[in-house]
């Protein structure tokens, strides 16, 4: 950080605050000045300054309000279906990590299309047979990467 341009802005949107060595920065010879909540200026002895956002924690949630609702509806629909699945199958799963089925993944996407005015094309039986899928999906093999 010492070698960054004067007035550089530094932030993290990964997950934890250790992507940026905050503890080392705070113990360094840089002088910290708080500008406002979740915005700090660090001045190095040479005079150059950087701005650290959200103390190195998630900038989108620390300095703003996180992701928009529409995209989070996708994530949280998956969460809700996962909770239902875990409860329905309690005692049946091993202590391992599982993925939700592709049927449920496609269902989550389907639930969001109407709201934004997207209309799906429907495969004919002949087309579905030609590529070896059901007319109602799933449409891709497990290894497909999107």
């Amino acid at each position, binding site marked *: 950080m010492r070698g960054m341009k004067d007035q550089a802005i530094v932030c993290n949107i990964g997950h934890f605050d250790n992507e940026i060595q905050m503890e080392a920065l705070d113990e360094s010879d840089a002088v910290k000045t708080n500008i406002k909540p979740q915005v700090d200026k660090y001045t190095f002895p040479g005079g150059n300054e950087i701005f650290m956002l959200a103390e190195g924690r998630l900038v989108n949630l620390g300095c*703003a309000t996180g992701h928009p609702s529409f995209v989070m509806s996708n994530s949280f629909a998956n969460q809700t279906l996962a909770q239902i699945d875990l409860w329905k199958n*309690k005692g049946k799963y091993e202590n391992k990590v599982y993925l939700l089925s592709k049927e449920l993944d496609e269902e989550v996407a389907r639930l969001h299309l109407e709201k934004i005015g997207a209309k799906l094309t429907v495969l004919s039986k002949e087309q579905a047979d030609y590529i070896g899928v059901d007319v109602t999906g799933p449409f891709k093999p497990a290894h497909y990467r999107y």
Partner: protein
Amino acid sequence: MSEDYKVADISLAEFGRKEIDIAQHEMPGLMAIRDKYAAEQPLKDVRIMGSLHMTIQTAVLIETLVALGAKVRWCSCNIFSTQDHAAAAIAATGVPVFAWKGESLEEYWWCTERALNFGDGQGPELIVDDGGDATLLIHKGYQLENGDRSFVDSEGGSLEEGVIKDLLKNLNEKQPQRWHGVVADWHGVSEETTTGVHRLYQMVEAGELLIPAINVNDSVTKSKFDNLYGCRESLLDGIKRATDVMIAGKVGVVCGYGDVGKGCAQALKGMGAQVIVSEVDPICALQATMEGFRVMPVEDSLGIGDIYVTTTGNKDIITPRSHAWHERSGHRL
């Protein structure tokens, strides 16, 4: 008895409720699930604990779980991510919430413990986790109760690790079988994010995972949307609210080019910044070049970059010592 919640200001509940109502219109997936399952009540009386950013969107998730019959307790999974009006609105409905914006590390872990405590020694039957902190606390507490003190007595680690160790040691003295009781009733966790999922796979590898887990992160409709398109909008929202800086004409340095990094790089490019990407994975690095981004180590961007964004999920990406390293490399800054 004191109230069974802790939020910044319960009087913000009305404002929170108005924003929750707006968000519901933008969350058709959750609302459709409510419609489909409300009659069936598939989560009837299930004790669910959530450790996930206490935002307006999360409020809609919580109320969906409640609509499906669950008994929910919640905390945030980040000391800064709570929206106080969202927390207040949820607390006002009688759902115990322990979250406010700007928690100390001690307060954060206190909140996590409180959200895990359903009273009468009961813990959650299911957990909604984001980053794996709730899962971590239970597993480390369980290990300690088994006489394995390797974690709590280990030296070093971050400040936060020290806080967790102190909490676990204190709890262990007061309730030496607390976590065994919790694990006995715990049937699973669904994990929201890349980092938490990574922790879960490591626990499976080590033979330590105590419950089944569902990796929500790697649903296509999660990681290819939230991580990518979510960050594409919210990164600049955060930077703008914090600094009001003009993005156009600046040089943005995005560390990591996974789903999150791709979204961030696109956002910066879209607003007129030049974008540099740092990557360790040759496939992701090649992808970045195909999108027109320069690829170089962070060190090589010093003196060029105006805005640095870490997206890797790894540690020590940006250090105070970069300058010294750079001097050794012989480049003039």
